[in-house]
């Protein structure tokens, strides 16, 4: 409408000029000739340039991402953002997807559910992305699911809770392993070694209490007997009271479920009390940082933990299906960001890999991308080998964890 108005306006002005003086008419004639020439040149240029420019700058595929990059949970969001950005860089350097570069738009949620919702609306409405990955937290993910389902956009969450995919939601997928699978991995390992009686030592945090629920829920099903159930606060500086209580029971195993400083304190106390001879110690899947071994100062020796394969990539057997993928990610990440790789960044890496796989196979069609994601089979990512199905939008099982024991201050594989 605007250009139409301008055109008529220009013509009117021109007509006005033409009707005034001869000199102006002469000038206008010149002008007319010049402008016709100009238009011809422009048209010619366009004809020459257009095909080339279409080939060169195909429209980018826009992928949205939201992570808790800052705030209390930045330890999740930062590696996730870094990983997703690194993926974008690598895929664009390799020529994009079917000639289309990808454009990753990342927003920070600060771990806040309200902000996550605002940012997702922005990605859908303003940025018009084809698919969304993230958020980092179960809470922020659950808060945006109604928006995602309404907008009908493929969505791969990087948060842990089993509630995200159970019950199954049409457009919602997730990459991280769940605590259920970690608990299963521990119980299976215990039974293999003929251990059936365990004591629980869990933090009263979101991570700890969720783990405690799963530990208690799965124990009777898998023939495990819980003989003690001790809880501590996330800021506690000693767990000797709880451990002394456990010492009086006939437990064979202690399962500690927490993240942060307490996961080091509890194994230190376990060693100090001389309980390492009688009780085997299992940590949760949150134990996978080499710093924990350093901080424990020798106390970590003999501690077991089910870990994602990202942190133990270099000791995986050469024929392991995940090895190459995981090792490449780990090396690239550590080289680029000069920081130890974490499982969390891997979740975003897997999400990006799946979404781009879908884009490559079916193009930028949201419904088709969703269908593709639902049928991913045998994809060996950093989190495990994914086998999605209409009933399972996570696609991992307890095999996603590798049982690791600390030996000579290093991670070691165990059977």
């Amino acid at each position, binding site marked *: 409408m605007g250009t139409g108005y301008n055109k008529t306006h220009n013509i009117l002005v021109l007509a006005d000029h033409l009707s005034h003086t001869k000199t102006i008419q002469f000038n206008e004639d010149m002008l007319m000739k010049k402008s016709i020439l100009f238009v011809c040149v422009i048209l010619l240029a366009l004809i020459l340039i257009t095909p080339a420019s279409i080939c060169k700058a195909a429209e980018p595929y826009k992928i949205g991402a939201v992570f808790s990059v*800052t705030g209390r949970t930045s330890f999740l969001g930062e590696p996730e953002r870094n990983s997703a950005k690194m993926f974008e860089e690598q895929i664009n350097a390799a020529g994009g997807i079917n000639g289309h570069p990808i454009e990753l738009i990342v*927003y*920070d949620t600060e*771990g*806040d*559910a*309200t*902000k996550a*919702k*605002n940012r997702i*609306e*922005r990605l*859908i*409405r*303003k940025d*018009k992305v084809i698919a969304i990955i993230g958020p980092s937290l*179960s*809470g922020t993910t*659950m*808060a945006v*699911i*109604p928006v995602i389902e309404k907008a009908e956009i493929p969505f791969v969450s990087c948060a842990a*809770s089993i*509630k995200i995919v159970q019950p199954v939601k049409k457009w919602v997928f997730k990459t991280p392993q769940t605590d259920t699978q970690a608990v299963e991995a521990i119980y299976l390992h215990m039974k293999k070694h003929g251990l059936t009686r365990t004591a629980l030592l869990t933090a*009263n*945090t*979101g991570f700890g*209490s*969720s783990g405690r629920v799963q530990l208690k829920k799965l124990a009777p099903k898998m023939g495990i007997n819980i003989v003690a159930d001790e809880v501590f606060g996330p800021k506690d500086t000693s767990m000797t009271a709880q451990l002394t209580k456990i010492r009086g029971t006939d437990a064979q195993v202690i399962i500690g479920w927490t993240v942060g400083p307490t996961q080091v304190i509890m194994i230190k106390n376990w060693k100090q009390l001389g309980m390492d001879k009688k009780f085997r110690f299992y940590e949760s899947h949150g134990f996978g940082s080499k710093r924990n071994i350093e901080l424990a100062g020798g106390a970590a020796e003999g501690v077991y933990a089910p870990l994602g394969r990202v942190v133990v990539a270099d000791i995986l057997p050469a024929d392991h299906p995940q090895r190459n993928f995981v090792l490449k990610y780990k090396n690239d990440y550590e080289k680029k960001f000069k920081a130890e790789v974490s499982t969390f960044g891997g979740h975003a890496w897997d999400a990006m890999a799946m979404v781009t796989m879908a884009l490559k196979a079916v193009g930028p069609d949201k419904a088709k991308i969703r269908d593709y994601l639902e049928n991913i089979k045998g994809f060996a990512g950093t989190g495990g080998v994914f086998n999605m199905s209409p009933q399972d939008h996570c696609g991992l099982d307890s095999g996603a964890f590798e049982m690791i024991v600390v030996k000579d201050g290093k991670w070691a594989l165990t059977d």
Partner: protein
Amino acid sequence: MGRRNLIGILFFSIFILLFPLVGRISAVSHYVDIMIFVGLTAMITMGLSLLMGYAGQISLGHAAFYGLGAYTSGILTAKYGINPWPALLAGIFLSAAVAVIVGSPSLKLRGHYLAMATLAFGEIIYIIFNETVSLTEGPDGFGNIPHLSIFGFKFESILANYYLVWAVAIIMLIFLLNIIHSRVGRALSSIHGSEIAAMTMGVNASRYKIQVFVISAAMASVAGSLYAHYVQFINPPVFDLFFSIKLLMMVIIGGMASVWGAIIGAALITFLPEWLLFLEDFDILAYGLVLLLIIIFLPKGLFSLPGILYRSVTPRLKSRS
């Protein structure tokens, strides 16, 4: 209420009515959604500004009242299948009752005891949200909260929720402006000026302060209920101490002495991060800088800006004439 406020409300209502037109411009189409959150926070900050600007008291627990409303509505509707409207009322009564219990002892004392009491209260509520897992599902939060509906009309779309939230907010605004321009408002101003002087004039200072505190708590609770029904999912971090502090910041940035300022503050603090997104990693720095500049150059808040401009312009005009 005064003619200026009436005109203000009229223009503001027209603005609110027409604002969703921005939804047609793709670059700002998500602003309608953000405006819903501006409306929700404005409901709380308006009450807070009455408490701070007129009763001279600080509350660090309004996020908890917001949470009480949200959790009461959420639990009653999603877990017990109760109609959302009585649930909303239940939230108001619960919040008001809690406000009386928390407010009565601390508001009878002079000084900032309410700030301390509400700080502790906010933490207690936050712990309750996290620990009563059987009721609140703890840190995970819970969803499946239904949308509000009235006479068969369901507030499902963003637009419907936008008009609902802002209708409620404007009703609250009119209500508060009425209070301020009544005997109660004048009594409150006198307490803020000098509590002793007010009391010698026969103003029951503590009773007025408790009333204002309860009103503001009830308003926060309504905002919480509307939040729960709009987002359909609630979890504890939304209602933590940090949000309480953010609410105070909105009131101070907007201008404590006016409920209009509270709305402006809520709008600015909610939209600012959105406008600064283009700075990528530096948005937090810019955010702090903007707030700092406002506090340094406009200590009485954004709402004092027109007055300052007017006063700086009028002498020149006069000298010219």
